[in-house]
């Protein structure tokens, strides 16, 4: 049974309010002035002309913030003294309306003294490169070590070494970033779409030197996140909050698409060198990985993204000897941040392309090579952890069968004429939730309140980013209490009302938030069962909650949920449940590069069918099959939607999206040049839902948001390689790149 999304009616009627739809009386509008150069000292900011424009309420810079405008090596709310990437915010104007603000912003003159810039991450690693911060451009270095790599290669019959490159893309959520700050007495309330309302609160409080309980963040309907609307939203919130506090008026900052492309969240580009050793029969013996991630100008999520990459770099395979080194590096490019996949897509891409090429060299079917080396239940993984609930082979077999892999693999690519078909495979594993990498608190809170009439109010610290979390949470509460979902109201997050539940990331919402909801619901159920037992003259264990009624198991006596709630109130029995769920402890040894990195993993396998036009280099995705193990599908249609959406994002990553970064400047700043897949670009997507329950998920569920995206690009590129009979090592596989391979350049 697929539960209908609770927020859907508001969205289809246009009643749902996104932050840009909010309006407050006397709202000031803010526009930001941004650096046109990648690395420079700010010598002088002249705002005299801007101030003179009628309707301008104020001009502000980083120096106007009473608190900390930036943590060390982190992106400042507005740059002070120095800019480190093209697009960095330097000053802002507040005015009576957007047009005046824009006009005034254009009149602000900033004098820069250019500094040497470093734009290539490999070059940035050299000691003589221009330094972005302090003494070294190396942000972090993560290792995984297992066995003895030299021994491993010594045992190998075949050794293959390849270098892969992934590029910079953006989240490109349809909703542009907007934050509205409203002074309320001594407090400032920020309305904004956000992935981590508690992080935003902290950032605003730090920048404005306010205690946490005077900053209130209220989640608005969010038009997509995919990793964005986190720190980037915090910066916007802080800018708006400062203006609101100083002018004592509501203040709104709203990015245009161009501004969002320049300022917003980007995926880390990686350069990955993989060296693999295998026996003649395809048994893998050794894998050495050296990867460099371009973190851009500020630290942001780089240490966490690269840690995840290190843990997952060798893929879901049994490999006894492993050596992984992943570096995060500063450059004067726009900062890299979280983007759906968070370090998994890049290494997944390299691993799966490598396996495909290796299969070809060995004369093996790519599926056969995967099946031979795939992790199995109880195996020791690359980080020395014992792997449980391993469903990889189930996923591989499922997708191979559904797609008709064997025949198509033999027959595609042989067509005459200028169109060639290809079929490609990829598989993956992904650590669930935050893991031992240190992103912080991996816990969540939920509060469930049953009213006198049996209706419910549910609050969870996990936000709805479009993934359907509210519906999933309502479903969990509904399952425990037998209360129909339409009687459960799930509230938007208000940071003053619910404990910090960490960010809605890492596909942890369902697992961590869901478990918190489960506990809250169970607490309420226990209280109600106690009263019901008295009324029904049975023991509490015999009480059943089903379809809005509470009764004995044999059905002989029952009352409605509403009647029971009323009776509980009369007796003074509290119907408030609070659930706090903390992810199981994991640990990581940084030096040895070993440990229980994640408490659970999610498995997937996918197959892409493409058709390549040999005259233009255009790749058409015909069909994409994806088998994802979701543990238990709390909402089947929603799960399929996540798979389908993830596929579209992966298609964009593999074939279409490119920021066109040159000399630190982004050239493709709107959708006319930054190409997102349309309904004509996605082909037919066939989601295959595998359900092998995970022991840690609420009702057995695992997270899905990110696994759905990470394996798409390798499957597609492997299919393209199959079609054209030649290897690609970079994405995006643009028309020019594919054509050049076809021509044998």
């Amino acid at each position: 049974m697929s539960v209908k999304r609770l927020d859907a009616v508001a969205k289809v009627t246009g009643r749902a309010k996104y932050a840009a739809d909010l309006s407050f009386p006397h709202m000031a509008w803010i526009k930001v002035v941004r650096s046109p150069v990648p690395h420079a000292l700010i010598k002088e900011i002249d705002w005299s002309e801007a101030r003179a424009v009628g309707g301008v309420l104020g001009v502000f810079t980083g120096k106007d913030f009473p608190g900390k405008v930036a943590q060390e090596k982190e992106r400042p709310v507005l740059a002070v003294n120095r800019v480190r990437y093209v697009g960095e915010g330097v000053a802002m104007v507040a005015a009576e309306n957007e047009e005046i603000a824009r006009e005034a912003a254009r009149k602000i003159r900033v004098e820069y003294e250019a500094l040497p810039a470093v734009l290539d991450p490999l070059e940035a690693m050299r000691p003589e490169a221009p330094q972005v911060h302090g003494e070294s451009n190396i942000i972090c270095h993560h290792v995984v070590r297992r066995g003895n790599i030299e021994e491993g290669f010594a045992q190998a019959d075949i050794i293959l070494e390849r270098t892969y490159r992934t590029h910079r893309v953006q989240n490109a959520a349809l909703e542009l970033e907007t934050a509205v700050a409203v002074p309320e007495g001594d407090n400032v309330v920020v309305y904004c779409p956000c992935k981590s309302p508690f992080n935003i609160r902290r950032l605003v409080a730090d920048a404005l030197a306010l205690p946490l309980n005077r900053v209130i963040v209220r989640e608005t309907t969010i038009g997509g996140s995919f990793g964005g609307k986190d720190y980037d939203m915090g910066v916007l919130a802080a800018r708006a909050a400062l203006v609101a506090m100083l002018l004592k008026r509501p203040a709104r900052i709203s990015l245009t698409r161009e501004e969002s492309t320049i300022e917003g969240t980007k995926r880390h580009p990686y350069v990955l060198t993989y060296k693999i050793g295998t026996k003649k029969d395809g048994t893998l013996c050794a894998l050495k990985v050296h990867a460099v991630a371009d973190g851009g100008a500020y630290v942001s999520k780089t240490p966490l993204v690269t840690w995840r990459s290190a843990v997952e770099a060798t893929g879901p395979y049994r490999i006894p000897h492993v050596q992984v080194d992943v570096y995060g590096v500063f450059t004067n490019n726009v900062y890299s941040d979280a983007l759906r996949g968070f370090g998994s897509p890049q290494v997944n891409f390299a691993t799966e392309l490598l396996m495909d090429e290796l299969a070809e060299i060995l004369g093996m079917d790519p599926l056969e090579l995967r099946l031979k080396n795939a992790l199995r239940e109880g195996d020791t993984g690359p980080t020395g952890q014992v792997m449980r609930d391993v469903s990889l082979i189930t996923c591989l077999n499922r997708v191979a069968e559904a797609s008709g892999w064997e025949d198509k693999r033999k027959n595609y690519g042989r067509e005459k004429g200028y169109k060639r078909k290809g079929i490609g495979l990829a598989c993956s594993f992904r650590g669930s939730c935050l893991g031992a990498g240190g992103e912080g608190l991996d816990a969540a809170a939920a509060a469930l309140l049953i009213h006198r009439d049996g209706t419910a109010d549910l609050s969870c610290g996990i936000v709805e980013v479009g993934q359907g979390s509210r519906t999933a949470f309502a479903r969990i509460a509904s399952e425990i209490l037998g209360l129909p979902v339409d009687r459960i109201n799930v509230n938007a997050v208000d940071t003053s009302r619910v404990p910090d539940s960490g960010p809605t990331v890492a596909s942890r919402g369902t697992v961590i938030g869901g478990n918190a909801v489960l506990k809250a619901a169970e607490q309420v159920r226990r209280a109600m069962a106690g009263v019901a037992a008295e009324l029904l003259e049975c023991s509490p264990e015999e009480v059943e909650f089903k379809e809005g009624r509470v009764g004995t198991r044999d059905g002989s006596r029952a009352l409605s949920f509403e009647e029971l709630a009323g009776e509980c109130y009369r007796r003074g029995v509290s119907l408030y449940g609070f659930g706090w769920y903390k992810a199981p402890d994991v640990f990581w040894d940084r030096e040895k590069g070993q440990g229980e990195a994640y408490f659970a993993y999610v498995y997937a396998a996918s197959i892409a069918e493409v058709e390549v036009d040999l005259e233009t280099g255009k790749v058409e995705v015909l069909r994409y099959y994806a088998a994802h193990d979701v543990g238990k599908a709390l909402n089947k249609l929603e799960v399929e939607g996540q798979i389908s959406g993830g596929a579209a994002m992966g298609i964009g990553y593999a074939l279409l999206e490119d920021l066109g970064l040159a000399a630190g400047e982004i050239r493709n700043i709107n959708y006319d040049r930054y190409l997102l897949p349309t309904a004509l670009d996605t082909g037919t997507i066939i989601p295959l839902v595998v359900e092998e329950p995970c022991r840690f998920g609420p009702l057995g569920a695992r997270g899905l948001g990110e696994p759905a995206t990470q394996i798409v690009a390798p499957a597609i590129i492997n299919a393209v390689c199959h079609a054209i009979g030649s290897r690609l090592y970079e994405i995006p596989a643009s028309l020019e790149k594919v054509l050049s391979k076809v021509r044998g350049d």
Partner: protein
Amino acid sequence: MARVRITFNINGREWTGEVDPNATLLEVIKGEVGLTGTKYGCGIGECGACTVIMNGKAVNSCLVLAPQADGARIETVEGLVREGKLHPLQEAFIEHHAVQCGYCTPGMLMSAKALLEENPDPTEEEIRIGISGNLCRCTGYEPIVKAIKAAAAKLDKSFQEE
């Protein structure tokens, strides 16, 4: 710049107001008229989030100058509900989980409505072409295409029953 007085019919009601000559229809709908359902996504007519129906045709309202809408008949997402009942397209979108973040939804619904009015029984390919000007980052389009097909069948049936 001197303001311009314009009148148009929006969702069945007449609206008159004074607008900047360089204001877009999108800005006026969201601002002066106060209907916030239609969305701004790119400002250059590429994403379709601002799609409304103008004189029976789906248009990107961010590319229509408000004075051009003088005398026009405009339909936005707010006009789909009739006598408190959801339009079959709206119902189908909910039924088929074609709504995740919802930001593309108003524009997508209007493109779909315009499509079905012109072509009541479209093939899947025709549906995809019909919504090819509406970007969605969340759903991968599959559920949206299914929803439109289901709504087409329902609308067709009720039309035949009349």
